[in-house]
C-alpha cells in the first residue's frame, strides 16, 4: 500500500534504530511524552520499544479523546439517550466506556435506548434527515482533529434548516493540556516524571499547524517534534528529539512535513472559530479542571447545542477509587502500577477509560505487551515481598 508500506519498512526501521542507539548517550535517560493516543497505539502495535535502547522511554500522554472524557459527561450522554429519548450517535469506541454504575452507552442500547455508532458526523446528519420526528444528538468528542467535522455538521444543519439535530460538545484542545501537564500543580513533584521533550500530535497539527506548540519551547524549554503516526515517523521524530536534547536545543520541529505546516488548515480553523468558543474551564478525566482547554457552541448556534436544548440533571459521578487512570493519563504511573490492571480491568470488562479505547495506555499494554507486563508485575510483587521481609 503506497504511503503506508514505506513507513513500515523493516530495513529502514533497523537503520533508524541503529542511528538512535548511536545518538543516545548511555549515561542519561531520555523521557519523551507522546501526547497522542495514536502514537501510543503505533508504538505498541509495531513494538517500537524493541528497536530503541533501554534508556529511551516513551511516556504516554492524555491524548486519547475517549480516555479523557469525564464520567459525568458520559453519564449526561446516557441521560440524553434514556431520559430524553433522543437518537444518540457517536464514534464506536465511545459506546463501550463505562459510566456510573458501569453503565455504558452500549448497555443503555441493550436496555432499549436508541444509540447508534457512526463513522462520521455526516452519518448523524443523515439519520436526522431520515427521522424528522426524532431528536438526533451527536456526542462530539475529541481534539482539534474531530472538531472541524462537528463544525461542518452544525453549519450544514443550519443551512438545511435541520432543526432536529444537535451536538453534545466535548471537544478539547491539545496545547492547554500540555501546558497543564508541565505546570501540574496537583502532581507530587517526587512522583513526577521529568519530561525531556514531546512527540507532537500529527493529525491535530494538520489542523492547528505547528505554531501553537512554540510556547513549549519558548516558555518551558521543552523540545517538540511533530510526528506522523507510522512507526518510522515515531522513530525518526525520536531521533530528532534526542539530537535536540544532546545539543541543548529547544525547537519545534516538524517530522510530519508531508502533512503539517506551521499555519495548519486555516479554513478549518475559521469554521471552528465561527461556531465554537473557548470554555473558561473543562474537566478532563485524569487532569481535573483545565482552564481554557475546551470548546462550547456559540450562543448564536444554541439551537444546535444539546446542552442548551435539553435540561440535563446535575450528577455526582464517581470514579472507581482504585483506578489509576488519572495518574496514568498524566504519565506519572504505568498500567502495571494499577491494582485493577489485568484483574478486575481488562478490555472485555474495562473499569477505567484507559482500558476501553484502543488508544489508551492500559489497553495498549494489555493487548500488545501483556506477556512482558505480566512478567514485570510478577517481578515487582516478588521485590515487594523481599522488601517487606
Amino acid at each position: 500500500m503506497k504511503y503506508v508500506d514505506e513507513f513500515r519498512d523493516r530495513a529502514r526501521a533497523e537503520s533508524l534504530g541503529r542511528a538512535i542507539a548511536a545518538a543516545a548517550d548511555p549515561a542519561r535517560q531520555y523521557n519523551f511524552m507522546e501526547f497522542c493516543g495514536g502514537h501510543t497505539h503505533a508504538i505498541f502495535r509495531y513494538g517500537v520499544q524493541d528497536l530503541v535502547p533501554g534508556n529511551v522511554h516513551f511516556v504516554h500522554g492524555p491524548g486519547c479523546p475517549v480516555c479523557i472524557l469525564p464520567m459525568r459527561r458520559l453519564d449526561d450522554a446516557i441521560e440524553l439517550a434514556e431520559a430524553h429519548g433522543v437518537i444518540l450517535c457517536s464514534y464506536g469506541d465511545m459506546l463501550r466506556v463505562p459510566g456510573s454504575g458501569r453503565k455504558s452507552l452500549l448497555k443503555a442500547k441493550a436496555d432499549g435506548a436508541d444509540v447508534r455508532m457512526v463513522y462520521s458526523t455526516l452519518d448523524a446528519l443523515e439519520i436526522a434527515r431520515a427521522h424528522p420526528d426524532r431528536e438526533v444528538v451527536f456526542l462530539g468528542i475529541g481534539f482539534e482533529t474531530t472538531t472541524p467535522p462537528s463544525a461542518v455538521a452544525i453549519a450544514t444543519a443550519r443551512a438545511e434548516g435541520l432543526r432536529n439535530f444537535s451536538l453534545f460538545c466535548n471537544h478539547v484542545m491539545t496545547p492547554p493540556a500540555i501546558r497543564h501537564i508541565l505546570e501540574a500543580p496537583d502532581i507530587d513533584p517526587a512522583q513526577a516524571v521529568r519530561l525531556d521533550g514531546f512527540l507532537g500530535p500529527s493529525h491535530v497539527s494538520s489542523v492547528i499547524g505547528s505554531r501553537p506548540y512554540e510556547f513549549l519551547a519558548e516558555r518551558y524549554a521543552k523540545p517538540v517534534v511533530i510526528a506522523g503516526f507510522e512507526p518510522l515517523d515515531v522513530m525518526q521524530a525520536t531521533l530528532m528529539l534526542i539530537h535536540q536534547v544532546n545539543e541543548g536545543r529547544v525547537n519545534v520541529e516538524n517530522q510530519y512535513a508531508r502533512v503539517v505546516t506551521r499555519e495548519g488548515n486555516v479554513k478549518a480553523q475559521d469554521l471552528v472559530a465561527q461556531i465554537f468558543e473557548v470554555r473558561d474551564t473543562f474537566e478532563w478525566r485524569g487532569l481535573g479542571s483545565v482552564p481554557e482547554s475546551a470548546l462550547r457552541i456559540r450562543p448564536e448556534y444554541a439551537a444546535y447545542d444539546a446542552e442548551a436544548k435539553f435540561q440535563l440533571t446535575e450528577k455526582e459521578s464517581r470514579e472507581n477509587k482504585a483506578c489509576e487512570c488519572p495518574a496514568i493519563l498524566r504519565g506519572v504511573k504505568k498500567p502495571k502500577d494499577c491494582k485493577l490492571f489485568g484483574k478486575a480491568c481488562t478490555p472485555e470488562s474495562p473499569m477505567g477509560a484507559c482500558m476501553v479505547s484502543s488508544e489508551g495506555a492500559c489497553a495498549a499494554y494489555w493487548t500488545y505487551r501483556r506477556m512482558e507486563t505480566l512478567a514485570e508485575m510478577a517481578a515487582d510483587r516478588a521485590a515487594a515481598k523481599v522488601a517487606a521481609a
Partner: protein
Amino acid sequence: MSRLTGNVEMAHGGGGRAMVGLIRNIFARHFANPLLAQGHDATAIAVPAGRIAVTTDAHVVSPLFFAGGDIGSLAVHGTVNDLAMAGARPLALTAAYIIEEGFPLADLDRIAASMGAAARAAGVPIATGDTKVVERGKGDGVFITTSGIGLIPDGVDIGPHRLAGGMAVLISGPIGDHGIAILSQRQGLDFGTTIQSDSAALCHMVADIVAAVPGIALLRDPTRGGLSATLNELAEAGRIGMMLDERAIPVRPEVAAACELLGLDPLHIANEGKLVCICAPQDADTLLAIMHRHPEGQGAAKIGETTAQNPGFIRMITAIGGTRVIDWLSGEQLPRIC
C-alpha cells in the same frame, strides 16, 4: 433469474399443500439427490465403518446477498468446512430454514439454487431439511441452519491435543476477505470496493492434505474473530505459544487499505474459505505445494511456528522488526457476518 413471483406466506410453513409446493418447487428442485428423494421424516444413510464427524452451524448473515456469495452458499460452506477441519470427508448435510413472512419467493429460489450448486461443488448431498415461517417482523428475511456428518479417514487424528512446540503454522491464503466484503456492503458503510468474500468449500483441498500427511496435527478455519481468535483458541487449548512473522501473513492490498481506513486489524477479520494448518516442520513444503494446486489455496504461506515456551501467548515479529502479542478481539467488531 428466477421465474417465481410473490412472497412467502404463513401458509408456506403451515404443513399443508402450500408448504409441500414450496419444498417441491424450490428446495427439491435445486437439491435433487437420491437421499432427499427418500422423502421420509429421517433419511437413511449407509455409513462405512470408522469415525463419524458431526457438526451444526446457524447462519444469520446480513446482507443475505454479498459480493462472492450469499447466505445459501455460506450455509453449505460453513458446515462442510467444519467437517473438513476434523479431516472428515462430508457425507451429507441437512438444512433448516426460518423464513420471514413476506420474503420474496424469487430470493428464496435464488438462495436455494446457490445452496444446491455449492453442495454439488462440494460433492455432498443435502439429505433432509425443514421449513418454518415466522410472522413479518419476527425474523430478518431468512435464517439457515445446516448440520452435517462426515467420515474421518483411518489414522487421521486432528485436534489441539496434538499440538507441540516447533511445529509450522500455515495459512491457506490471504486473510480478511469475507469480513471486509460484508462490511463494505453494510448500510451506512458502503465504501465501493471490489473485494469478494472468500466463501468456499475446503473439503477437496483437505482431502488431498490428509491423504498426503495423515498425521497432520491441526486444521481450523479462522471464521468469526479472524486469525487472531483462532490462534488464541488453539494456544489455550493446546498449551503452546506461537511466534508469527507479520510480513509473512498474506493480506490483499484492498483489504489492507479498507482496514487502514476503518481502523481495523486484518487479524481480527472473518474468513469463510481459509484454513490454518499446523504440522511438523518437515511437512510444511509438501502441504503448501498441495494448497497451491487448489484455487482456494492460492496464496498459502507459512506464517510462523509454535513454541513450547510462553503457552497461551501468540506473539508476532511486527513489520518493522519489533514484537507484540496478538490478542483476541475485544467486544464485537461487526455483528452478523455469517
